[in-house]
């Protein structure tokens, strides 16, 4: 893996949306919602549609064989990104589907007396499935809280995770606060009590090195479109023996070996979890995105995001009347700057920023319980990526100051 610094000018040229000339100002600071796509990913998907489009795993003709090879090669490269084996990678629609798959299939073994432990920061996609299935199955859901510094309260985690705990599921990096969750420590705590440990890597994979062996997680779910891949594709890693032990999530074609009117035999891993024709172009595109981030170097991307986050935190925090949410500067954090200016509603703030060509997200960031905990309706969030430069941050800061003037904060 490469290290060192990324060449920001070159990186920006890789992205057609950023390189477009003669357009209105475009400062893209919403990568935690969805990143931009590099030309190499577009080209890989275009190749499928133009040169060898056919269904996978079935046709005996060359186009189908090429498509199958390209799709499975995508899976291999996605697996390499997180140091997994290809048969441990299930291609999904995204982190949401991966997390739902786990909640539905793991909860078949849960019942009254069992506990699932989450964090209060979880994205709705890792909270609502457990919350709803708890009503059906009768298990309890517990939440690890935050310290006053908005980091995960590990002491609370030690008390919550115990013999009743069957599953611990936590985000790696908070999409709303940028808080980095100590997932290795949680993995150790979970495994000490024989619980399954799940990581939601939506905001970490592709942003920093994520190694499933190093984390010792049992499952890792993430989305492709937040790491320069296409929309509608994501991946779920599971330890081989864990995936083998789970029932299928969706039934249909491709996930099956043999069907009679009475019973069926499931396909091997990972296809057991991929019912129906998969998102072939998506798998090929995500494979190309995995190549792209490895080409830049995960350490280099992380270093760049850290530098830009430091710069943004310093500049934004200095604006009078501003409140920045998340761990204090100097703490390891993801590329997210969540803030509120006086009593300006995040939607008003986002609209004002949009008028200056700045793309941010205003609202609850699919973390309503967390917003309630912070005592706000929502925040305005600027989120960073490998292509974020100082001009993006400077434009953001200037526009926030303009908003302060308009709203007389």
């Amino acid at each position: 893996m490469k290290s060192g610094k990324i060449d920001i000018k070159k990186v920006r040229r890789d992205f057609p949306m950023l390189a477009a000339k003669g357009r209105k100002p475009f400062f893209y600071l919403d990568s935690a919602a969805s990143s931009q796509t590099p030309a190499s990913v577009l080209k890989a998907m275009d190749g499928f549609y133009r040169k060898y489009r056919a269904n996978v795993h079935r046709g005996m003709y060359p186009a189908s064989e090429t498509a199958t090879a390209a799709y499975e090669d995508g899976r291999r490269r996605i697996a390499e990104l997180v140091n997994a084996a290809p048969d441990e990678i299930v291609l999904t629609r995204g982190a949401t589907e991966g997390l739902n798959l786990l909640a539905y299939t793991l909860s078949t073994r849960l019942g009254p007396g069992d506990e699932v432990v989450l964090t209060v920061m979880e994205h709705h996609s890792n909270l609502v499935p457990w919350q709803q299935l708890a009503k059906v199955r009768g298990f309890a859901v517990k939440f690890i809280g935050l310290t006053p510094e908005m980091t995960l309260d590990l002491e609370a985690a030690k008390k919550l995770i115990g013999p009743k705990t069957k599953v611990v599921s936590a985000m790696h990096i908070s999409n709303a606060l940028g808080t980095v969750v100590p997932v290795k420590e949680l993995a150790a705590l979970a495994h000490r009590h024989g619980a399954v440990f799940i990581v939601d890597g939506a905001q970490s994979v592709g942003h920093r090195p994520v190694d499933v062996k190093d984390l010792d997680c049992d499952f890792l779910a993430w989305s492709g479109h937040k790491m320069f891949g296409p929309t509608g594709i994501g991946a779920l890693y599971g330890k081989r023996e864990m995936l083998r032990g789970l029932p299928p999530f969706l039934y249909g074609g491709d996930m099956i070996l043999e069907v009679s009117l009475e019973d069926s035999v499931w396909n091997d891993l990972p296809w057991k979890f991929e019912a129906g024709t998969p998102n072939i172009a998506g798998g090929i595109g995500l494979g190309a995105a995995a190549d792209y981030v490895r080409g830049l170097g995960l350490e280099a991307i992380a270093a760049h995001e850290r530098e830009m986050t430091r710069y943004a935190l310093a500049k934004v925090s200095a604006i009078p009347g501003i409140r920045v949410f998340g761990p204090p500067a100097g703490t390891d954090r993801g590329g997210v700057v969540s803030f509120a200016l006086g009593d300006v509603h995040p939607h008003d703030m986002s609209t004002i920023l949009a008028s200056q060509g700045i793309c941010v997200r205003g609202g609850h960031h699919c973390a309503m319980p967390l917003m309630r905990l912070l005592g706000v309706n929502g925040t305005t969030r600027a989120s960073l990526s490998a292509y974020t430069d100082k001009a993006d941050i400077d434009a953001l800061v200037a526009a926030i100051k303009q908003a302060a003037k308009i709203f007389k904060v």
Partner: protein
Amino acid sequence: MTANGRKKKPVAPATRDIDIIYQENILDHYRRPRNFGRIAGASASRKEANFSCGDDVEIFILFGTDGRTKEVKFEGRGCAVSQAAASLLTEQAIGLTRKQLAALSAGDVVAWLGIPIGPSRLRCATLALKALQNALAGDDKV
């Protein structure tokens, strides 16, 4: 045609100039809302919320003996667009019949605001109107 004789569809912002989006008028209605408060013994009332942004508006309507609105008031919290729209609605809805109130449209609200409203902010702009019309729909008194 709408109750005011204007035919307006919600429009996407033609220009994204900051001063146009947050005109003095909107901010004035936001900071100093008109007809803010409750009506004891209202003919109809209704609270609506946009849970995704935490905006809420509660509308109170009092009809006179002539069947026209005598008083319309609101309480609410939220973004400038939702609260200014509610304030404007309470001014515009005075003296109207039930039929005229029911005929008010999103286009009318956008016209009163006088600013471009994109699809993502239309729910903010029309929250008060939704509360008003649902208040009437949920009430079968003549």
